[in-house]
């Protein structure tokens, strides 16, 4: 299993250039995930884009591991159209400082995707040209996809499953 992750071209490249910022390399169901320090996220993405040809930023999202530290995990899905392979880069973001550098300097697709993460998770993207809410109304309070945000809306009892 780990063999496949070790033979991945992105993993080999990252191990050579960013060995000190790699936190975890994992392989599951044929997909390779590399967790990196958030300080180096732009440098790593730039390297993957320009040197290894991962030219498309397919997706930016986040996962809220509420109750654990660091609380948030930013997830970047990169795709290489020439080589037709994927790599997933993750970067932990702690609750005390919910900011990470914006990838809009590398990909324009990051604009909308990061706005959504800001809207629903409350992650701040430094350097984002237009960081506003995108799905929720401008005057909305709170970030709905956080685990401590009640399913039925603010100031409501937590959802306990269907009663029927």
């Amino acid at each position: 299993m780990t063999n496949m992750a070790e033979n991945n071209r992105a993993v080999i490249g990252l191990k050579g250039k960013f060995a000190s910022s790699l936190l975890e390399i994992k392989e599951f169901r044929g997909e390779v995930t590399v967790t990196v320090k958030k300080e180096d996220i732009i440098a790593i993405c730039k390297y993957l884009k320009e040197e290894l040809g991962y030219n498309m930023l397919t997706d930016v999202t986040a996962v809220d591991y509420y109750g654990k530290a660091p609380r948030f995990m930013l997830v970047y899905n990169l795709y290489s159209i020439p080589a037709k392979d994927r790599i997933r880069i993750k970067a932990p973001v702690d609750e005390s400082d919910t900011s990470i550098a914006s990838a809009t300097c590398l990909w324009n697709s990051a604009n909308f995707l990061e706005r959504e993460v800001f809207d629903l998770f409350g992650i701040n993207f430094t350097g984002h040209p237009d960081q506003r809410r995108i799905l929720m109304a401008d005057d909305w309070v709170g970030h709905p996809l956080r685990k401590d945000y009640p399913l039925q809306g603010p100031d409501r009892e937590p959802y306990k499953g269907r009663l029927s």
Partner: protein
Amino acid sequence: MASTEIMTVNMGPQHPSTHGVLRLVVELDGEVIQKITPHIGYLHRGVEKLSEHRTYHQVLPLTDRLDYLAPMSNNLGYVLAVEKLLGIEIPERAQTVRVILTELTRLKSHLVWIACHALDIGAMTVFIYAFREREKVMQLYEKISGARMTSSYFRVGGLSADVYDGFEKDVQEIIDTFPGHFDTYEGLLTKNTIWMQRTIGNGVISAEDAINYGITGPALRGSGVDWDLRRDNPYSGYEKYNFQVPVGKNCDTYDRYKVRLVEMREAVKIIKQALDSLKPGPVLADAPQVCYPPKEEVYNTIEGLIHHFKIASEGFPVPEGEVYQSVENPKGELGYYIVSDGGTKPYRMRIRPPSFVNLGAIEKMAKGAMIADLVAVIGTLDIVLGEIDR
């Protein structure tokens, strides 16, 4: 020199050419577009949040309602992602039926695209014709799943039931008659002077920019990027079928129109091959901890009833891990990123909607054009707000 003043025009959210509830605030210098600010979220239902509170089987109906013009394609992406997490194998018959139905869905979605796109530009006849043909696919949907739009026919592990008697005949009739209909649309549009003047040179985006903006699907291929997930990262047995991936050259609305028309013809070819290779067999994987038992068992035996009850009430546990599975939807790359904590509900489910990302490029494509051309750009992007807002 005459003094100019920038005028701000609000377009939508109730506007016939915005294909739903898209609101664009457009800044104009005369008729020339200077800036476009899209406002979305009017249809936000919190599908990703809801899915964290439902079992894996209960999430499936939510996915119908994303891109409601292509429900089966959305279902396919979701069930493939969960099956990948579980690591189960799907019987060949189920896979082939899935391919037939998702390609029919592609036809259905593209028919709405050509209908609305042409109507927006003023060709009403195409609208009437394309909706007439779409009705054929809708009727097949209704026969197979009982619903015309929100089908929820696929299941994690296969299909909810085998196809009805006469399914092959109905599909055969569609693939026999549709190429002739495509000829009609082409006859009405391809060499039509008004159509050509409205679409050639409209909404130009270079291949490099299109990749940078994350555009996927026919809109990307229209810019000359030869990339299709069905061919390049095959799923559901797409590697077995022969089909061409059309690409454009001039990166404009006219080329995207031609790409989508060829795609419809290729979809018919895929359906034909899949129909020929359809053999009898099971339609559910041999995974009793995941799949519902057959109805005869549920109604007639106590074991079957308990089995059904357990899956319906508790769901099934999914191994801890995370996967990203994407499918080539009619609109582009639809991806599901599911994080499982080992429980019976997704810990986090992210939907990567193609229309949402494609919409991000609207300013790039329409800046400097006339306001009337914006309508053509919205049409060529082929967006669905149910998927953008989720």
